[in-house]
């Protein structure tokens, strides 16, 4: 090639070590974004050479170029749509050398698309161990493209390949399937002319795509109907014909070039699978792994989260005491720094979950987890891929929703994202503990005590709400056909730690940078609402509290707590609480609980601190809080927190969205406000309805 390629696309079927290869080639010199219109990670990086800067684009792993999932749509768009923003100048197809046949199918398709191509045979070490020997020169001649034999894990052959990439060693190969043999030539010419594509096979693919899936079609840029008359063309037959020709060609090619010492023994992977996929042991192993992961996110993240909490708290008070007092200082210390702290605090959970998930993915276990749980999820319109996000939702919905990205089926991905926040996350626990404690003030420390039972019941409720909502969505979305499974169970191997590290870094960064903006904005708004009131009502509220005459330490504390309480009651948030009182009255709540609901919209655990401020309790000690709440009476002198009210609140907190970080992440993952808004409305209505029922039944 004369011109050096500027953008090299890296294609390949799943599980050929493409990601490892990509990471080895680009290292930290990469960026992760999104392909336009879909929620598929777009990973690209730079190959530096002395003369040129070449971008390497890691395409999602797909078996072919016929788009049916979002992943395949991306590959199709990059390789076939001339109007797509990312246009590859050359394509490197990565093939698992120990299983060449499977990857060569895609390689011949890419060659037929007319791209300057190179084939990378990866996992040479494994192929060698399996007794594969290849006549590389002959294969290069038959395909007409350069072949590189490497092992990305071991690092062998990588330098030569990189050199070949940067010097532009890609060749337009020999056609395997002639588009003209598949399709009427005059129509083909018409298509080529219409799309202005010189390569017949590419024009055929685009024509097929545009005449098939209306749903997918709408999402690509070029929307006008195609002029070429394609009625009466059976593309499904053409595809079947193409597939069978291609398989024959690949088989023929391998017969000539590949020798395998035939010593088929039950492999290592198969021996592990006998246990891991066993109907009973497999399920137990899966549950044990999930339990460990859940525990880890729950408990290991606690310490760093506390540290982050304290660090931001002391930064906030440092700013407060150092800068001159005023609105700006308040905004900085209480609004912005506290808001930032509320973002960073999720990083330990996100990092831990993705460390676990990428270890499981990299070892090959994840596909087995899908295999084992597929049956359970099917009645709810989901597949096994949804299980991990849902279980992770017990710890925190934010990383859980981010992990739903691996679900290839768009509908399944959307349903999973929609229902995951119903799972009882760790932020609900403080609220549950306070309220359940009020419900059962004295409780024995036995294993099956009433508190424990109530907590367990709340967790079960979350699972039921998630699954039932998934079922309802399945009918609502009325998709014609069920999603597929068709999932490869890759060989077990040691996970690549570099890949794990990069995933953890990338997911944490994405959350902080992208979801963080929205979270910061909402938390500042909420802070303003809770800290300011109309006119000088706030000041009046503060002054209405009599100053202590003999300011002992206790009296000062009581005084300050009373001021804070009065101020919150007089603030905009306080007014909103009174404003929504008629709406929440049927749930058994008064306006003070209304304030707590509003303030905890940002994050449900804020309920505890808001209640503490509202009832002028200086410290947030749970015992004191519970005692005072149980003594709280309304204007008629009846207790406010009756069992009916407490249950109604528990149910509300179990089902309502009450987490702006989740809203922000859903926005980030679905690329629109439609889903997060629908979801928040749905969950709030669901919570309202359930709390209403519970209160009316119990009171």
């Amino acid at each position, binding site marked *: 090639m004369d011109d050096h390629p500027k953008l090299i696309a890296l294609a390949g079927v799943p599980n050929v070590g493409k990601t490892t290869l990509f990471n080895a080639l680009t290292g930290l010199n990469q960026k992760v974004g999104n392909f336009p219109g879909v929620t598929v990670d777009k990973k690209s990086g730079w190959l530096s050479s002395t003369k040129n800067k070449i971008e390497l684009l890691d395409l999602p792993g797909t078996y072919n170029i016929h788009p049916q999932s979002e992943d395949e749509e991306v590959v199709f768009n990059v390789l076939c749509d001339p109007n797509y923003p990312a246009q590859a100048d050359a394509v490197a197809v990565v093939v698992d050398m120990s299983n060449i*046949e499977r990857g060569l199918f895609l390689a011949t398709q890419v060659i037929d698309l007319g791209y300057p191509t190179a084939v990378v045979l990866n996992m040479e070490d494994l192929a060698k161990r399996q007794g594969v020997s290849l006549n590389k020169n002959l294969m290069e001649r038959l395909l007409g493209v350069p072949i590189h034999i490497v092992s990305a894990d071991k690092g062998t052959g990588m330098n030569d390949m990189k050199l070949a990439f940067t010097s532009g060693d890609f060749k337009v190969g020999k056609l395997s399937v002639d588009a003209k043999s598949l399709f009427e030539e005059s129509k083909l010419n018409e298509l080529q002319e219409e799309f202005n594509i010189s390569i017949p096979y590419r024009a055929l693919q685009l024509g097929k795509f545009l005449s098939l899936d209306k749903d997918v079609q709408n999402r690509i840029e070029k929307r006008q109907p195609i002029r070429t008359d394609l009625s009466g063309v059976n593309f499904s037959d053409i595809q079947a014909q193409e597939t069978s020709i291609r398989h024959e060609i690949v088989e023929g090619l391998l017969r000539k070039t590949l020798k395998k010492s035939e010593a088929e023994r039950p492999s290592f992977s198969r021996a592990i699978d*006998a246990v891991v996929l066993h109907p009973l042991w497999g399920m137990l192993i899966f549950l044990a792994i999930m339990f460990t992961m859940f525990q880890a996110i729950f408990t290991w993240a606690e310490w760093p989260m506390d540290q982050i909490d304290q660090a931001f708290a002391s930064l906030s008070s440092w700013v407060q005491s150092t800068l001159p007092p005023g609105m700006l200082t308040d905004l900085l210390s209480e609004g912005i720094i506290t808001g930032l702290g509320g973002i960073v605090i999720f990083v330990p959970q996100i990092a831990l979950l993705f460390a676990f998930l990428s270890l499981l993915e990299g070892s090959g276990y994840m596909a087995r987890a899908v295999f084992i749980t597929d049956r359970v999820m099917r009645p709810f319109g989901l597949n096994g891929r949804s299980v991990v996000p849902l279980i992770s939702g017990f710890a925190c919905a934010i990383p859980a929703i981010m992990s739903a990205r691996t679900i290839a089926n768009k509908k399944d991905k959307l349903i999973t994202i929609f229902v995951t926040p119903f799972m009882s996350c760790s932020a609900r626990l403080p609220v549950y503990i306070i309220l359940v404690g009020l419900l059962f003030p004295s409780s024995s420390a036995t294993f099956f005590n009433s508190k424990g039972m109530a907590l367990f019941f709340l967790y079960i409720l979350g699972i039921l709400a998630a699954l039932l909502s998934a079922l309802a969505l399945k009918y609502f979305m009325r998709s014609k056909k069920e999603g597929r499974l068709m*999932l490869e*169970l890759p060989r077990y191997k040691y996970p690549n730690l570099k890949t794990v590290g990069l995933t953890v870094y990338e997911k944490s960064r994405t959350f902080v940078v992208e979801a963080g903006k929205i979270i910061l904005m909402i938390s500042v708004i909420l802070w303003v609402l809770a800290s300011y009131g109309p006119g000088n009502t706030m000041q009046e509220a503060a002054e209405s509290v009599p100053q202590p005459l003999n300011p002992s330490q206790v009296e000062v504390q009581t005084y300050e707590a009373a001021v804070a309480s009065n101020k919150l009651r007089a603030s905009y948030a306080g007014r909103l609480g009174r404003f929504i009182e008629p709406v929440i009255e049927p749930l058994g709540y008064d306006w003070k609980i209304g304030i707590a609901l509003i303030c905890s919209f940002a994050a449900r655990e804020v309920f505890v601190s808001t209640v503490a401020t509202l009832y002028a309790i200086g410290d947030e000690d749970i015992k004191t809080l519970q005692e005072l709440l149980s003594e709280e009476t309304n204007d008629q002198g009846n207790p406010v927190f009756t069992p009916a009210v407490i249950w109604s609140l528990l149910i509300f907190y179990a089902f309502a969205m009450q987490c702006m970080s989740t809203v922000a992440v859903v926005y980030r993952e679905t690329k629109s406000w439609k889903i997060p808004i629908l979801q928040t409305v749905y969950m709030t209505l669901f919570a309202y309805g359930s709390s209403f029922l519970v209160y009316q039944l119990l009171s």
Partner: protein
Amino acid sequence: MLVELTADSLKINTLASIVGIEPNEDGNRLSEIGFYPGKKLVLVNAAPFGGPLAFELGNTVVALRRDEARLIRVSPLPELIHG
């Protein structure tokens, strides 16, 4: 005589040869990922209660739901791989 059945009704660890694939969209997809006439497969694992089936196909193992496996017509071969 060759007995023909669909891949979902194979017994565990029986070797079978693929005879044909249902000519529809899902069938095409199966062919593309490697299930095509002439190839040999072995059912290696079956998830309980009508869950997915895992087929060894050459050097790979692919999990299919039962209704996906039903699109594959196979004829069992007498030899046992192992087990």
